[in-house]
């Protein structure tokens, strides 16, 4: 992917801004992290914390 970006940058040479720079791999990775983070939060908060007995209410 890095090579492709370099090639595009070379051929466009300032013409097409950075529109050709599409780090789809990075986006996918961040997307996966994001999903893990959201699922972990839901599990920790709703299942492990609120799901336990004797929630402190006062």
């Amino acid at each position, binding site marked *: 992917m890095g090579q492709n970006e370099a090639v595009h940058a070379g051929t466009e040479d300032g013409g097409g*801004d*950075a529109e050709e*720079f*599409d*780090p789809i791999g*990075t*986006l996918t990775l*961040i997307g996966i992290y*994001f999903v893990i*983070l*959201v699922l972990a*939060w*839901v599990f920790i*908060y*709703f299942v492990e*914390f*609120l799901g*336990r*007995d*004797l*929630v*402190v*209410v*006062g």
Partner: protein
Amino acid sequence: MHIHAYEKLWLALSIVLILALIGTVTYGAVGPGVAMVADSQSTIDAGGIDEDERFSEPRVEQVGENEYEAYVVAYQFGFEPTPIVVPANSTVTLQVTSRDVIHGFEVVGTGANTMVVPGEVSEITVETDEPTEYGIVCNEYCGAGHHVMEGKLHVVSQSEFENRGGDSE
């Protein structure tokens, strides 16, 4: 300024994430009514617990319709009363204090957990469900016997609680 579409996307997702974190905690406070252990009680004389009307005789007391208060004293190395007997499907306020050093009060496997500081009264209110038995541990190192310091919290049915009547008070 040019911002890449992907960057806009993950900026937006970050904001969504922050709002979701704040939102879930807000939901916890508003929906199930999760509260923090507050500094709501006035201080007491840790050396004079024997004269304190609540803690001279650690016990569970009915204070309203389906509302109970448990006065618990933590000491090196245990909790009084043991077991703490409370009725099922009721609202129980635990008032816990220490007569010697700092202790912890954690009902194992539940959300009920607080520090117990001599001279301070830690107050936590919980709602009990079905009859069951919980263990209580001290989770603040309090001395040589810390590892054996434990208590019991027994949630019993309303009728059994009434039958016990005398010995839990």
